[in-house]
Protein backbone atom coordinates (compact mmCIF):
# COMPACT_ATOMS: atom_id res chain seq x y z
CA UNK A 1 0.00 0.00 0.00
CA UNK A 2 1.33 3.42 -0.99
CA UNK A 3 0.57 6.77 0.61
CA UNK A 4 1.41 10.27 -0.51
CA UNK A 5 1.00 13.32 1.67
CA UNK A 6 2.43 16.34 3.39
CA UNK A 7 4.38 15.90 6.63
CA UNK A 8 3.67 17.38 10.06
CA UNK A 9 6.77 17.31 12.24
CA UNK A 10 6.76 16.84 16.03
CA UNK A 11 9.60 16.43 18.54
CA UNK A 12 10.76 13.72 20.96
CA UNK A 13 8.64 12.03 23.64
CA UNK A 14 5.25 13.14 22.28
CA UNK A 15 3.04 11.72 25.05
CA UNK A 16 -0.50 10.41 24.86
CA UNK A 17 -1.79 13.41 26.83
CA UNK A 18 -0.48 15.60 23.99
CA UNK A 19 -2.02 13.30 21.34
CA UNK A 20 -5.43 13.23 23.03
CA UNK A 21 -5.74 15.02 26.39
CA UNK A 22 -7.44 13.03 29.15
CA UNK A 23 -10.11 15.72 29.52
CA UNK A 24 -11.64 14.44 26.25
CA UNK A 25 -11.67 10.76 27.23
CA UNK A 26 -15.29 10.80 28.31
CA UNK A 27 -16.14 9.58 24.82
CA UNK A 28 -15.05 6.74 22.54
CA UNK A 29 -16.45 8.38 19.38
CA UNK A 30 -13.58 8.51 16.83
CA UNK A 31 -14.75 11.77 15.22
CA UNK A 32 -15.02 13.54 18.59
CA UNK A 33 -11.55 12.30 19.56
CA UNK A 34 -10.15 13.35 16.16
CA UNK A 35 -11.36 16.92 16.70
CA UNK A 36 -8.85 17.22 19.59
CA UNK A 37 -6.02 15.24 17.98
CA UNK A 38 -2.54 16.54 18.98
CA UNK A 39 -4.25 19.49 20.71
CA UNK A 40 -1.75 19.97 23.54
CA UNK A 41 1.20 19.76 21.11
CA UNK A 42 -0.35 21.97 18.37
CA UNK A 43 -3.83 23.35 19.15
CA UNK A 44 -4.52 24.00 15.46
CA UNK A 45 -3.43 20.60 14.14
CA UNK A 46 -6.87 18.98 14.09
CA UNK A 47 -8.32 21.86 12.07
CA UNK A 48 -5.39 22.04 9.66
CA UNK A 49 -4.56 18.39 8.93
CA UNK A 50 -5.90 16.98 5.64
CA UNK A 51 -6.71 13.31 4.89
CA UNK A 52 -3.65 11.29 3.94
CA UNK A 53 -1.14 13.61 5.56
CA UNK A 54 1.65 12.11 7.61
CA UNK A 55 2.96 12.68 11.14
CA UNK A 56 6.76 12.53 11.57
CA UNK A 57 8.22 12.61 15.07
CA UNK A 58 11.30 11.94 17.17
CA UNK A 59 11.98 9.22 19.69
CA UNK A 60 9.45 7.53 21.99
CA UNK A 61 6.30 8.72 20.18
CA UNK A 62 3.15 7.86 22.16
CA UNK A 63 4.76 7.51 25.57
CA UNK A 64 2.63 7.68 28.70
CA UNK A 65 -0.78 6.13 29.05
CA UNK A 66 -2.24 3.02 27.42
CA UNK A 67 -5.17 4.94 25.94
CA UNK A 68 -6.13 3.43 22.60
CA UNK A 69 -7.92 6.72 22.02
CA UNK A 70 -4.51 8.04 20.86
CA UNK A 71 -4.13 5.94 17.69
CA UNK A 72 -7.92 6.17 17.19
CA UNK A 73 -7.76 10.00 17.24
CA UNK A 74 -4.82 10.07 14.80
CA UNK A 75 -6.47 7.60 12.42
CA UNK A 76 -9.86 9.33 12.57
CA UNK A 77 -8.17 12.69 11.91
CA UNK A 78 -7.27 11.20 8.53
CA UNK A 79 -3.54 10.81 9.14
CA UNK A 80 -2.21 8.18 6.73
CA UNK A 81 0.70 6.97 8.82
CA UNK A 82 3.10 7.95 11.59
CA UNK A 83 6.85 7.86 11.03
CA UNK A 84 9.02 8.16 14.15
CA UNK A 85 12.53 7.60 15.36
CA UNK A 86 10.98 5.14 17.82
CA UNK A 87 7.60 4.38 19.42
CA UNK A 88 6.60 3.77 23.03
CA UNK A 89 5.68 0.15 23.61
CA UNK A 90 1.95 0.32 24.31
CA UNK A 91 1.32 2.85 21.53
CA UNK A 92 3.14 0.56 19.09
CA UNK A 93 0.90 -2.35 20.05
CA UNK A 94 -2.26 -0.26 19.98
CA UNK A 95 -1.48 1.20 16.55
CA UNK A 96 -1.29 -2.27 15.02
CA UNK A 97 -4.42 -3.39 16.83
CA UNK A 98 -6.24 -0.32 15.48
CA UNK A 99 -4.88 -0.59 11.95
CA UNK A 100 -2.94 2.68 12.06
CA UNK A 101 0.21 2.20 9.96
CA UNK A 102 3.40 3.22 11.76
CA UNK A 103 7.01 3.10 10.62
CA UNK A 104 10.19 3.29 12.67
CA UNK A 105 12.88 5.18 10.77
CA UNK A 106 15.45 7.32 12.65
CA UNK A 107 16.86 8.83 9.45
CA UNK A 108 13.47 9.91 8.14
CA UNK A 109 12.53 11.25 11.58
CA UNK A 110 15.67 13.39 11.64
CA UNK A 111 15.41 14.73 8.07
CA UNK A 112 11.70 15.32 7.48
CA UNK A 113 10.33 18.79 8.21
CA UNK A 114 6.77 20.13 8.29
CA UNK A 115 5.49 20.68 4.76
CA UNK A 116 7.73 18.11 3.05
CA UNK A 117 5.86 15.97 0.51
CA UNK A 118 6.36 12.27 1.24
CA UNK A 119 5.66 9.05 -0.60
CA UNK A 120 5.50 6.00 1.65
CA UNK A 121 5.36 2.35 0.63
CA UNK A 122 4.05 0.54 3.69
CA UNK A 123 4.90 -2.93 2.34
CA UNK A 124 8.55 -2.28 1.59
CA UNK A 125 9.14 0.42 4.23
CA UNK A 126 10.48 2.79 1.59
CA UNK A 127 9.99 6.51 2.31
CA UNK A 128 10.66 9.05 -0.45
CA UNK A 129 10.95 12.73 0.50
CA UNK A 130 9.88 14.39 -2.76
CA UNK A 131 10.59 17.89 -1.40
CA UNK A 132 14.21 17.11 -0.49
CA UNK A 133 14.76 14.41 -3.09
CA UNK A 134 15.85 11.91 -0.42
CA UNK A 135 15.12 8.22 0.21
CA UNK A 136 14.85 6.56 3.61
CA UNK A 137 14.36 2.92 4.58
CA UNK A 138 12.15 2.08 7.60
CA UNK A 139 12.48 -1.01 9.80
CA UNK A 140 10.45 -3.81 8.21
CA UNK A 141 7.21 -4.64 10.04
CA UNK A 142 7.83 -7.77 12.22
CA UNK A 143 6.27 -10.97 10.78
CA UNK A 144 3.84 -11.42 13.70
CA UNK A 145 2.53 -7.88 13.22
CA UNK A 146 2.12 -8.62 9.51
CA UNK A 147 0.02 -11.62 10.50
CA UNK A 148 -2.22 -9.35 12.58
CA UNK A 149 -2.51 -6.87 9.71
CA UNK A 150 -3.32 -9.68 7.26
CA UNK A 151 -6.07 -10.90 9.61
CA UNK A 152 -7.47 -7.33 9.64
CA UNK A 153 -6.37 -6.43 13.20
CA UNK A 154 -6.33 -8.19 16.53
CA UNK A 155 -10.10 -8.64 16.92
CA UNK A 156 -10.38 -10.26 13.49
CA UNK A 157 -7.53 -12.57 14.49
CA UNK A 158 -9.43 -13.50 17.68
CA UNK A 159 -12.71 -13.90 15.79
CA UNK A 160 -11.01 -16.39 13.45
CA UNK A 161 -9.75 -18.30 16.50
CA UNK A 162 -13.25 -18.30 18.02
CA UNK A 163 -14.85 -19.74 14.88
CA UNK A 164 -12.17 -22.45 14.73
CA UNK A 165 -13.02 -23.37 18.32
CA UNK A 166 -16.73 -23.77 17.60
Amino acid at each position, binding site marked *: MKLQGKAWKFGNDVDTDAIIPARYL*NTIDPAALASHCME*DADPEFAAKVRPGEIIAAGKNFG*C*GSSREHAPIAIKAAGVGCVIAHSFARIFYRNAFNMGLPILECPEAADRIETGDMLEVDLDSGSIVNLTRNENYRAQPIPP*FMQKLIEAGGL*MEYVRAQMSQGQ
Partner: protein
Amino acid sequence: MPKTISEKILADHAGKSEVFPEELIEARIDFALGNDITAPLSISAFRKAGATKVFDPERISLVPDHFVPNKDIASAVQAAMLRDFAREFKLPYYFEVGRMGVEHALLPEQGLVLPGDVVIGADSHTCTYGALGAFATGVGSTDLAAAMITGRVWFKVPRSLKFVYKGKLRPWVGGKDLILYTIGRIGVDGARYRAMEFTGEVIENLRMSDRLSMCNMAIEAGAKVGIIAPDEITEEYVSVRAKRPYKFYSSDPGAEYEAVHEWDLSDIEPVVAMPHSPENVKQVTELPETPIDQVVIGSCTNGRLEDLRIAAEVMRGRKVANGVRCIVVPATQNVYLEAMEEGLIEIFIEAEAAVSTPTCGPCLGGHMGILAPGETAIATTNRNFVGRMGHIDSKVYLSNPAVAAASAVLGRIAHPEEVLS
Protein backbone atom coordinates in the same frame (compact mmCIF):
# COMPACT_ATOMS: atom_id res chain seq x y z
CA MET B 1 20.24 -21.73 31.11
CA PRO B 2 19.98 -19.15 33.95
CA LYS B 3 16.89 -16.95 33.55
CA THR B 4 15.47 -13.72 34.94
CA ILE B 5 12.30 -13.64 37.04
CA SER B 6 10.38 -12.16 34.08
CA GLU B 7 11.54 -14.92 31.71
CA LYS B 8 10.65 -17.63 34.22
CA ILE B 9 7.13 -16.31 34.83
CA LEU B 10 6.50 -15.93 31.09
CA ALA B 11 7.87 -19.42 30.28
CA ASP B 12 5.51 -21.02 32.80
CA HIS B 13 2.54 -19.11 31.41
CA ALA B 14 3.43 -19.95 27.81
CA GLY B 15 3.78 -23.65 28.62
CA LYS B 16 7.44 -23.64 27.62
CA SER B 17 10.54 -24.85 29.46
CA GLU B 18 12.28 -21.54 28.75
CA VAL B 19 11.81 -18.35 26.75
CA PHE B 20 14.35 -15.98 25.23
CA PRO B 21 14.39 -12.17 24.96
CA GLU B 22 12.72 -10.91 21.75
CA GLU B 23 10.85 -14.22 21.33
CA LEU B 24 7.14 -13.84 20.55
CA ILE B 25 4.98 -15.98 22.81
CA GLU B 26 1.34 -16.44 23.62
CA ALA B 27 0.81 -16.55 27.37
CA ARG B 28 -2.04 -17.50 29.66
CA ILE B 29 -3.08 -14.61 31.88
CA ASP B 30 -4.07 -14.85 35.54
CA PHE B 31 -5.91 -11.55 35.72
CA ALA B 32 -7.11 -8.70 33.50
CA LEU B 33 -8.49 -5.29 34.32
CA GLY B 34 -9.97 -2.20 32.76
CA ASN B 35 -11.35 1.13 33.94
CA ASP B 36 -14.09 3.60 33.01
CA ILE B 37 -11.92 5.23 30.31
CA THR B 38 -10.39 2.15 28.69
CA ALA B 39 -12.99 -0.59 29.21
CA PRO B 40 -15.76 1.08 27.14
CA LEU B 41 -13.59 0.55 24.04
CA SER B 42 -12.89 -3.04 25.14
CA ILE B 43 -16.58 -3.76 25.71
CA SER B 44 -17.41 -2.29 22.31
CA ALA B 45 -14.73 -4.48 20.64
CA PHE B 46 -15.87 -7.53 22.66
CA ARG B 47 -19.44 -7.11 21.42
CA LYS B 48 -18.38 -6.39 17.84
CA ALA B 49 -16.43 -9.65 17.83
CA GLY B 50 -19.68 -11.44 18.66
CA ALA B 51 -18.31 -12.89 21.91
CA THR B 52 -20.94 -14.36 24.22
CA LYS B 53 -18.81 -15.23 27.24
CA VAL B 54 -15.68 -14.17 29.09
CA PHE B 55 -12.86 -16.65 29.66
CA ASP B 56 -13.29 -16.55 33.46
CA PRO B 57 -15.49 -14.03 35.34
CA GLU B 58 -13.34 -14.42 38.48
CA ARG B 59 -10.23 -13.21 36.66
CA ILE B 60 -11.51 -9.96 35.20
CA SER B 61 -11.92 -6.77 37.18
CA LEU B 62 -13.63 -3.61 36.02
CA VAL B 63 -12.92 -0.58 38.17
CA PRO B 64 -14.65 2.72 37.48
CA ASP B 65 -12.07 5.09 39.01
CA HIS B 66 -10.94 7.76 36.54
CA PHE B 67 -13.98 10.00 36.02
CA VAL B 68 -16.05 8.76 38.98
CA PRO B 69 -18.06 9.68 40.92
CA ASN B 70 -19.35 10.57 37.44
CA LYS B 71 -18.06 14.02 36.57
CA ASP B 72 -20.47 14.66 33.69
CA ILE B 73 -23.10 12.93 31.59
CA ALA B 74 -20.64 11.49 29.08
CA SER B 75 -18.61 9.96 31.93
CA ALA B 76 -21.78 8.58 33.47
CA VAL B 77 -22.55 6.83 30.17
CA GLN B 78 -19.09 5.24 30.13
CA ALA B 79 -19.35 4.09 33.76
CA ALA B 80 -22.77 2.61 32.97
CA MET B 81 -21.22 0.51 30.19
CA LEU B 82 -18.94 -1.14 32.78
CA ARG B 83 -21.79 -1.68 35.22
CA ASP B 84 -24.01 -3.30 32.56
CA PHE B 85 -21.20 -5.51 31.28
CA ALA B 86 -20.27 -6.64 34.79
CA ARG B 87 -23.91 -7.51 35.50
CA GLU B 88 -24.39 -9.35 32.20
CA PHE B 89 -21.26 -11.47 32.58
CA LYS B 90 -21.54 -11.82 36.37
CA LEU B 91 -18.14 -10.34 37.17
CA PRO B 92 -17.66 -10.53 40.96
CA TYR B 93 -14.80 -8.00 40.90
CA TYR B 94 -16.63 -5.01 39.54
CA PHE B 95 -16.15 -2.29 42.16
CA GLU B 96 -18.94 0.27 42.43
CA VAL B 97 -18.51 3.79 43.80
CA GLY B 98 -18.51 3.40 47.57
CA ARG B 99 -16.65 0.11 47.31
CA MET B 100 -14.00 1.10 44.81
CA GLY B 101 -10.54 2.55 44.86
CA VAL B 102 -7.89 3.63 42.42
CA GLU B 103 -7.39 0.36 40.53
CA HIS B 104 -3.67 -0.18 41.18
CA ALA B 105 -4.07 0.46 44.89
CA LEU B 106 -7.29 -1.58 45.08
CA LEU B 107 -6.35 -4.84 43.35
CA PRO B 108 -3.20 -5.56 45.43
CA GLU B 109 -5.08 -4.55 48.58
CA GLN B 110 -7.89 -6.98 47.73
CA GLY B 111 -5.46 -9.85 47.04
CA LEU B 112 -6.61 -10.14 43.42
CA VAL B 113 -3.19 -9.76 41.81
CA LEU B 114 -0.48 -12.00 43.23
CA PRO B 115 3.16 -13.06 43.06
CA GLY B 116 3.97 -15.10 39.96
CA ASP B 117 0.90 -13.87 38.06
CA VAL B 118 0.80 -12.64 34.50
CA VAL B 119 -1.54 -9.63 34.61
CA ILE B 120 -2.62 -7.32 31.83
CA GLY B 121 -4.57 -4.14 32.34
CA ALA B 122 -5.93 -1.54 29.99
CA ASP B 123 -4.06 1.08 31.96
CA SER B 124 -0.37 1.86 31.68
CA HIS B 125 0.21 1.76 35.44
CA THR B 126 -0.69 -1.94 35.57
CA CYS B 127 3.08 -2.41 36.00
CA THR B 128 2.50 -1.52 39.69
CA TYR B 129 1.93 -5.21 40.54
CA GLY B 130 5.55 -6.02 39.73
CA ALA B 131 6.11 -4.98 43.35
CA LEU B 132 4.47 -8.29 44.32
CA GLY B 133 6.67 -10.29 41.95
CA ALA B 134 4.07 -10.46 39.17
CA PHE B 135 4.69 -9.91 35.45
CA ALA B 136 2.14 -7.13 35.00
CA THR B 137 1.88 -4.76 32.08
CA GLY B 138 -0.38 -2.17 30.50
CA VAL B 139 -2.04 -2.83 27.16
CA GLY B 140 -4.64 -1.15 25.00
CA SER B 141 -8.38 -1.69 25.14
CA THR B 142 -8.44 -4.04 22.16
CA ASP B 143 -5.79 -6.26 23.73
CA LEU B 144 -7.97 -6.37 26.85
CA ALA B 145 -11.04 -7.25 24.78
CA ALA B 146 -9.19 -10.15 23.14
CA ALA B 147 -7.88 -11.34 26.51
CA MET B 148 -11.35 -11.19 28.09
CA ILE B 149 -12.46 -13.65 25.39
CA THR B 150 -9.46 -15.97 25.16
CA GLY B 151 -7.65 -15.62 28.51
CA ARG B 152 -4.46 -15.32 26.51
CA VAL B 153 -2.27 -12.54 25.20
CA TRP B 154 0.76 -12.30 22.91
CA PHE B 155 3.98 -10.83 24.22
CA LYS B 156 7.46 -10.17 22.99
CA VAL B 157 9.71 -11.40 25.81
CA PRO B 158 11.48 -8.25 27.03
CA ARG B 159 15.18 -7.89 27.63
CA SER B 160 15.89 -7.16 31.29
CA LEU B 161 17.70 -4.27 32.93
CA LYS B 162 18.95 -4.81 36.48
CA PHE B 163 19.03 -1.96 38.99
CA VAL B 164 21.01 -2.51 42.20
CA TYR B 165 20.36 0.08 44.92
CA LYS B 166 23.00 0.16 47.65
CA GLY B 167 23.42 2.03 50.92
CA LYS B 168 20.90 3.25 53.48
CA LEU B 169 18.28 5.84 52.56
CA ARG B 170 18.10 9.15 54.41
CA PRO B 171 14.92 10.08 56.31
CA TRP B 172 12.05 11.23 54.01
CA VAL B 173 13.52 9.35 51.04
CA GLY B 174 11.48 6.39 49.77
CA GLY B 175 10.26 4.44 46.77
CA LYS B 176 9.02 7.52 44.91
CA ASP B 177 12.45 9.14 45.17
CA LEU B 178 14.18 5.96 44.02
CA ILE B 179 12.08 5.71 40.89
CA LEU B 180 12.29 9.45 40.07
CA TYR B 181 16.06 9.28 40.52
CA THR B 182 16.18 6.23 38.24
CA ILE B 183 14.08 7.87 35.51
CA GLY B 184 16.31 10.95 35.79
CA ARG B 185 19.35 8.77 35.19
CA ILE B 186 18.06 6.66 32.27
CA GLY B 187 15.41 8.97 30.72
CA VAL B 188 11.77 8.50 29.80
CA ASP B 189 12.68 5.97 27.13
CA GLY B 190 15.64 4.49 28.99
CA ALA B 191 13.82 1.21 29.58
CA ARG B 192 11.62 1.22 26.46
CA TYR B 193 10.30 -2.33 25.84
CA ARG B 194 12.45 -3.60 28.76
CA ALA B 195 11.80 -5.30 32.08
CA MET B 196 13.24 -3.24 34.94
CA GLU B 197 14.31 -5.47 37.81
CA PHE B 198 14.80 -3.64 41.09
CA THR B 199 17.26 -5.28 43.53
CA GLY B 200 19.81 -4.56 46.23
CA GLU B 201 19.86 -3.93 49.95
CA VAL B 202 17.72 -0.81 49.66
CA ILE B 203 14.94 -2.80 47.96
CA GLU B 204 15.25 -5.68 50.43
CA ASN B 205 14.52 -3.21 53.23
CA LEU B 206 11.78 -1.32 51.37
CA ARG B 207 8.22 -1.74 52.60
CA MET B 208 5.48 -2.84 50.22
CA SER B 209 3.87 0.58 49.77
CA ASP B 210 7.20 2.01 48.58
CA ARG B 211 7.79 -0.96 46.29
CA LEU B 212 4.35 -0.38 44.75
CA SER B 213 5.16 3.33 44.18
CA MET B 214 8.40 2.36 42.50
CA CYS B 215 7.05 -0.29 40.14
CA ASN B 216 4.07 1.97 39.37
CA MET B 217 6.34 4.41 37.55
CA ALA B 218 8.40 1.87 35.55
CA ILE B 219 6.21 2.87 32.58
CA GLU B 220 7.52 6.43 32.96
CA ALA B 221 10.90 5.05 31.81
CA GLY B 222 9.12 3.27 28.94
CA ALA B 223 9.35 -0.16 30.59
CA LYS B 224 7.04 -3.09 29.96
CA VAL B 225 7.31 -4.17 33.60
CA GLY B 226 9.03 -3.13 36.81
CA ILE B 227 9.55 -6.14 39.00
CA ILE B 228 10.87 -7.03 42.46
CA ALA B 229 11.57 -10.61 43.55
CA PRO B 230 9.14 -11.64 46.32
CA ASP B 231 10.52 -12.06 49.86
CA GLU B 232 9.28 -12.04 53.48
CA ILE B 233 7.90 -8.51 53.05
CA THR B 234 5.87 -9.77 50.07
CA GLU B 235 4.72 -12.84 51.99
CA GLU B 236 3.58 -10.70 54.91
CA TYR B 237 1.59 -8.46 52.54
CA VAL B 238 -0.08 -11.11 50.36
CA SER B 239 -0.63 -14.02 52.78
CA VAL B 240 -3.48 -12.22 54.56
CA ARG B 241 -5.14 -11.04 51.35
CA ALA B 242 -4.65 -13.62 48.60
CA LYS B 243 -7.85 -14.82 46.93
CA ARG B 244 -5.94 -17.56 45.03
CA PRO B 245 -2.73 -19.60 45.45
CA TYR B 246 0.43 -17.78 44.38
CA LYS B 247 4.01 -18.61 43.52
CA PHE B 248 7.33 -16.91 44.22
CA TYR B 249 9.81 -16.64 41.35
CA SER B 250 13.30 -15.17 41.43
CA SER B 251 16.10 -14.57 38.95
CA ASP B 252 18.78 -17.23 38.64
CA PRO B 253 22.37 -16.32 39.43
CA GLY B 254 24.03 -15.69 36.08
CA ALA B 255 20.81 -14.63 34.32
CA GLU B 256 21.45 -12.31 31.38
CA TYR B 257 20.82 -8.59 31.61
CA GLU B 258 21.13 -6.04 28.85
CA ALA B 259 22.63 -3.66 31.41
CA VAL B 260 23.21 -3.50 35.15
CA HIS B 261 23.03 -0.17 36.99
CA GLU B 262 24.49 -0.07 40.48
CA TRP B 263 23.97 3.05 42.56
CA ASP B 264 24.69 3.94 46.19
CA LEU B 265 21.85 6.27 47.19
CA SER B 266 22.83 6.89 50.82
CA ASP B 267 23.29 10.60 50.18
CA ILE B 268 20.29 11.55 48.06
CA GLU B 269 17.63 13.93 49.34
CA PRO B 270 13.97 13.66 48.24
CA VAL B 271 13.70 13.94 44.46
CA VAL B 272 11.32 16.20 42.52
CA ALA B 273 10.46 15.93 38.80
CA MET B 274 10.04 19.37 37.27
CA PRO B 275 7.72 20.31 34.37
CA HIS B 276 7.11 18.79 31.87
CA SER B 277 8.74 15.37 32.10
CA PRO B 278 9.31 12.74 34.79
CA GLU B 279 12.98 12.61 33.71
CA ASN B 280 13.50 16.28 34.51
CA VAL B 281 14.57 15.65 38.11
CA LYS B 282 16.43 17.51 40.84
CA GLN B 283 16.89 16.84 44.53
CA VAL B 284 14.49 19.10 46.41
CA THR B 285 17.41 20.93 48.01
CA GLU B 286 18.66 21.97 44.55
CA LEU B 287 15.41 23.62 43.44
CA PRO B 288 15.10 27.39 43.22
CA GLU B 289 12.28 28.97 45.26
CA THR B 290 9.12 27.56 43.64
CA PRO B 291 5.75 28.94 44.80
CA ILE B 292 2.74 26.66 44.29
CA ASP B 293 -1.03 27.04 43.94
CA GLN B 294 -2.16 23.45 44.52
CA VAL B 295 -1.01 20.23 46.17
CA VAL B 296 -2.42 16.78 45.40
CA ILE B 297 -1.64 13.88 47.70
CA GLY B 298 -2.99 10.58 46.42
CA SER B 299 -3.15 8.43 43.24
CA CYS B 300 -2.05 4.90 42.34
CA THR B 301 1.51 6.04 42.99
CA ASN B 302 1.16 7.49 46.49
CA GLY B 303 -2.38 7.24 47.85
CA ARG B 304 -1.83 4.34 50.25
CA LEU B 305 -2.16 4.43 54.04
CA GLU B 306 1.63 4.71 54.56
CA ASP B 307 1.70 7.71 52.20
CA LEU B 308 -1.10 9.44 54.11
CA ARG B 309 0.67 8.74 57.41
CA ILE B 310 3.80 10.48 56.12
CA ALA B 311 1.81 13.48 54.86
CA ALA B 312 -0.09 13.70 58.16
CA GLU B 313 3.14 13.58 60.16
CA VAL B 314 4.33 16.68 58.30
CA MET B 315 0.96 18.49 58.44
CA ARG B 316 -0.04 17.63 62.02
CA GLY B 317 -0.93 20.81 63.90
CA ARG B 318 -0.10 23.02 60.93
CA LYS B 319 -2.16 24.80 58.28
CA VAL B 320 -2.08 24.77 54.52
CA ALA B 321 -0.47 28.08 53.45
CA ASN B 322 -2.67 30.99 52.40
CA GLY B 323 -3.42 30.91 48.68
CA VAL B 324 -2.78 27.17 48.39
CA ARG B 325 -5.34 24.41 47.84
CA CYS B 326 -4.34 21.02 49.22
CA ILE B 327 -6.36 18.01 48.03
CA VAL B 328 -5.88 14.65 49.73
CA VAL B 329 -7.30 11.60 47.95
CA PRO B 330 -7.13 8.28 49.85
CA ALA B 331 -6.66 5.66 47.13
CA THR B 332 -9.26 3.15 48.34
CA GLN B 333 -12.25 3.01 50.68
CA ASN B 334 -10.20 0.85 53.08
CA VAL B 335 -7.36 3.38 53.06
CA TYR B 336 -9.92 6.12 53.73
CA LEU B 337 -11.45 4.22 56.64
CA GLU B 338 -8.14 3.30 58.22
CA ALA B 339 -6.87 6.86 57.79
CA MET B 340 -9.99 8.04 59.59
CA GLU B 341 -9.56 5.54 62.41
CA GLU B 342 -5.94 6.62 62.87
CA GLY B 343 -6.93 10.28 63.01
CA LEU B 344 -5.15 11.20 59.78
CA ILE B 345 -8.25 12.61 58.10
CA GLU B 346 -8.80 14.85 61.11
CA ILE B 347 -5.23 16.15 60.78
CA PHE B 348 -5.80 16.97 57.09
CA ILE B 349 -9.12 18.69 57.69
CA GLU B 350 -7.77 20.68 60.64
CA ALA B 351 -4.89 21.71 58.37
CA GLU B 352 -7.59 23.01 55.98
CA ALA B 353 -6.93 20.46 53.27
CA ALA B 354 -9.81 19.04 51.19
CA VAL B 355 -10.25 15.28 51.51
CA SER B 356 -11.88 13.48 48.58
CA THR B 357 -13.48 10.12 48.01
CA PRO B 358 -11.15 7.76 46.06
CA THR B 359 -10.72 8.79 42.40
CA CYS B 360 -7.97 9.20 39.81
CA GLY B 361 -9.63 12.59 39.04
CA PRO B 362 -6.96 15.28 39.49
CA CYS B 363 -3.96 13.16 38.41
CA LEU B 364 -5.00 13.16 34.75
CA GLY B 365 -6.79 16.49 34.73
CA GLY B 366 -10.18 14.81 34.84
CA HIS B 367 -11.89 16.51 37.77
CA MET B 368 -11.47 17.26 41.51
CA GLY B 369 -8.68 19.79 41.10
CA ILE B 370 -8.02 21.17 37.61
CA LEU B 371 -5.35 23.84 37.15
CA ALA B 372 -5.98 27.29 35.62
CA PRO B 373 -3.56 28.90 33.13
CA GLY B 374 -0.32 29.88 34.85
CA GLU B 375 -0.93 27.77 37.96
CA THR B 376 1.63 25.43 39.51
CA ALA B 377 0.95 22.22 41.40
CA ILE B 378 3.05 19.72 43.25
CA ALA B 379 1.56 16.24 43.24
CA THR B 380 2.41 12.76 44.46
CA THR B 381 1.13 11.45 41.10
CA ASN B 382 3.15 10.00 38.22
CA ARG B 383 3.01 12.30 35.19
CA ASN B 384 3.77 15.99 34.68
CA PHE B 385 3.29 16.27 30.92
CA VAL B 386 2.04 19.52 29.37
CA GLY B 387 -1.61 19.99 30.35
CA ARG B 388 -1.68 16.82 32.45
CA MET B 389 -3.62 18.37 35.36
CA GLY B 390 -5.43 21.12 33.50
CA HIS B 391 -4.64 24.07 31.24
CA ILE B 392 -1.67 23.67 28.89
CA ASP B 393 -0.10 26.72 30.54
CA SER B 394 -0.15 25.08 33.99
CA LYS B 395 2.78 23.26 35.54
CA VAL B 396 3.11 20.07 37.59
CA TYR B 397 5.98 19.00 39.85
CA LEU B 398 6.08 15.38 41.07
CA SER B 399 7.29 14.39 44.53
CA ASN B 400 6.87 12.02 47.46
CA PRO B 401 4.09 12.66 50.04
CA ALA B 402 6.41 14.28 52.61
CA VAL B 403 7.63 16.92 50.16
CA ALA B 404 4.07 17.53 48.91
CA ALA B 405 2.80 18.00 52.49
CA ALA B 406 5.69 20.31 53.43
CA SER B 407 5.05 22.31 50.26
CA ALA B 408 1.37 22.67 51.19
CA VAL B 409 2.35 24.12 54.57
CA LEU B 410 4.98 26.53 53.27
CA GLY B 411 3.28 27.47 49.97
CA ARG B 412 6.45 26.67 48.03
CA ILE B 413 8.24 23.43 47.20
CA ALA B 414 9.95 22.44 50.42
CA HIS B 415 11.94 19.73 52.19
CA PRO B 416 9.93 18.26 55.08
CA GLU B 417 12.71 19.18 57.50
CA GLU B 418 12.01 22.86 56.77
CA VAL B 419 8.59 22.33 58.33
CA LEU B 420 9.53 20.02 61.17
CA SER B 421 12.72 21.73 62.40
